[in-house]
């Protein structure tokens, strides 16, 4: 990228994809923004009219909004916590020289390739089902009452399912990071008298901090919009106990046919996502520099 020609050439070659990306992003965003100011209900077609910020007022004062807002934060935070702690543990295990290590690594990655609806259904019907599920059988076998996961702890159940899906991703990123750690540093720490725990705290963890940052940023983007797992398991219930913002917007616009209200919710979600993004970048983004 040294000369003027190569810079201009690079810009020209980037141009089509930038235009495409902008169109893909800007057009739906503008349409959503436009709908969010309309009284637009699919049950009364043709009666759209401009109602200002009324949609926003309704959406933001809806008790379901606060419930789903906190559910979203809990869902994102819970999954991040589990996948990063579990991911570090798995990465350290997978880094050990064990027989058939390559096969184990592929196996560990498997959940990431299962589509969300399928894995949620497997969890719902085969594992967490209070009558036929594996967990219920196990509970009966040790003599306690089976837990009805989706009725008693709906949000936690969804956190567990989503964590299971994202754990391999975190483990893989952290594993590659661990593998890039200079072995001589660990040997130097050995000679310096650091035990396994000290080595983990003072050598491995600081080395992993950049990878952890990347995992947090990438996962947050995807976790803010978790939808399929909720749809096929709890449908947001009981009540609003497992409704997140994405799911609330879906109920608003497609179950209640209120396109205007749903669009307002969508814009609110975009703003919240941006706040979270700015917050995250401020908090941990400096780890990615240099």
């Amino acid at each position, binding site marked *: 990228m040294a000369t003027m020609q190569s810079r201009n050439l690079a810009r020209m070659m980037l141009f089509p994809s930038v235009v495409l990306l902008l169109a893909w992003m800007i057009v739906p965003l503008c349409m959503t923004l436009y709908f969010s100011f309309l009284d637009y209900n699919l049950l009364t077609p043709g009666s759209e009219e401009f109602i200002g910020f009324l949609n926003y007022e309704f959406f933001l004062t809806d008790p379901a909004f606060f419930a789903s807002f906190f559910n979203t934060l809990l869902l994102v935070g819970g999954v991040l916590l589990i996948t990063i702690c579990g991911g570090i543990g798995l990465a350290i295990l997978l880094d050990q020289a064990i027989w058939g290590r390559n096969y184990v690594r592929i196996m560990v990655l498997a959940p990431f390739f299962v589509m969300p609806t399928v894995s949620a259904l497997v969890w719902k019907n085969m594992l967490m089902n209070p009558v036929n599920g594996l967990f219920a059988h196990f509970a009966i076998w040790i003599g306690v009452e089976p837990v009805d996961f989706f009725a008693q702890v709906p949000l936690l159940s969804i956190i567990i399912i989503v964590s299971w899906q994202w754990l391999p991703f975190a483990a893989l990123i952290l594993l590659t990071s661990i593998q890039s750690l*200079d072995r*001589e*540093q660990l*040997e*130097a*720490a*050995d*000679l*310096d*008298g*650091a035990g396994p725990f*000290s080595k983990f705290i*003072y*050598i491995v963890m*600081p*080395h992993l*901090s950049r990878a952890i940052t990347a995992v947090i940023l990438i996962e947050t983007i995807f976790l803010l919009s978790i939808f399929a797992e909720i749809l096929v398991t709890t449908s947001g219930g009981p009540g609003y106990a497992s409704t997140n913002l994405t799911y609330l917007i879906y109920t608003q616009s497609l179950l209640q046919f209120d396109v205007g209200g749903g669009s307002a919710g969508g814009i609110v979600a975009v703003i919240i996502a941006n706040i979270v993004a700015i917050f995250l970048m401020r908090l941990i983004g400096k780890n990615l520099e*240099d």
Partner: protein
Amino acid sequence: MGSITLKQVTKTFGDVNVIKPIDLQIHDGEFIVFVGPSGCGKSTLLRMIAGLEDTTSGNIDIDGQDATNTPPAKRGLAMVFQSYALYPHMSVRNNIAFPLKRAKMPPAEIEAKIASAAKILNLGDYLDRKPGQLSGGQRQRVAIGRAIVRQPSAFLFDEPLSNLDASLRVNMRLEISELHKTLDTTMIYVTHDQVEAMTMADRIAVFNAGVIEQVGTPLELYQTPINRFVAGFIGSPKMNFIEVEAVDGDPTSCVGVRPEHLKVTQDKGLWTGKVGVIEHLGSETFLHIHVDGVGPLTLKADGDCPLKYGDDVNLTAPQNKIMHFDAAGKTLPATPFSGN
């Protein structure tokens, strides 16, 4: 105290014998250099002494105590790695303090030790920088600083200068030698560079394919190498080897002459050849001379050598500087040599 004794030490990786049985006595306060071509086992032996590699058989005694199975931290040794192995996220100060903090030393004492190490190694200005902000030579000093604050009974250096540029290497060589004189601690230094070995060592151990070929002071190795390998490895440029035809009653199969002992003569010498490439270094000149039936010979001449490419020259060497080797490469007692 820092005497280390290796008794019949071996190391195998799978089926490969990396270290064949080695016996070596390293005296307290000595600067010993392990030198040899890459893959000869010198670094592995150093890592075994440090405790980073298991010893397959044999014993390693440190200060008279059997330390063969002692964990690295308990051996009282400090190591400087080729890559320096500084902790990148810690400041220089914390890097140096790390082993002391692990040893639960009181903070005031740690501060005092850091200050004294910084003074010895001229690190005062960099104490609060990260290793990434330092040059190669400075990182090297920090790595040495981290080693000296522990007051080890011996220092282990694993090719510490190989990542530095040539002029810095010369400086650091001096600094490490100086440090050895100041601290008066045993140092084991691994290198593949025979110049480093010659300039720094009290004694040199020449390694080849997992065995020690010869141990001795630099001048012993230079003047009386016990075999062709040591003769060829010590000295720069390399010794010239000239294969000779076997004569009844003389086991000599090869003679060796160092470039600095080869002379151009007006009389009929031992060999005649044509001057090839000439390397002028200013203070001296290296001539590459093609001798028919012998191959290229290197000759070290004065800086103002008048010879030119393509000149015909007669070469000779003092009889007492010509070394004789038998078919197995062992050095033979000198006998008069009259050319081939």
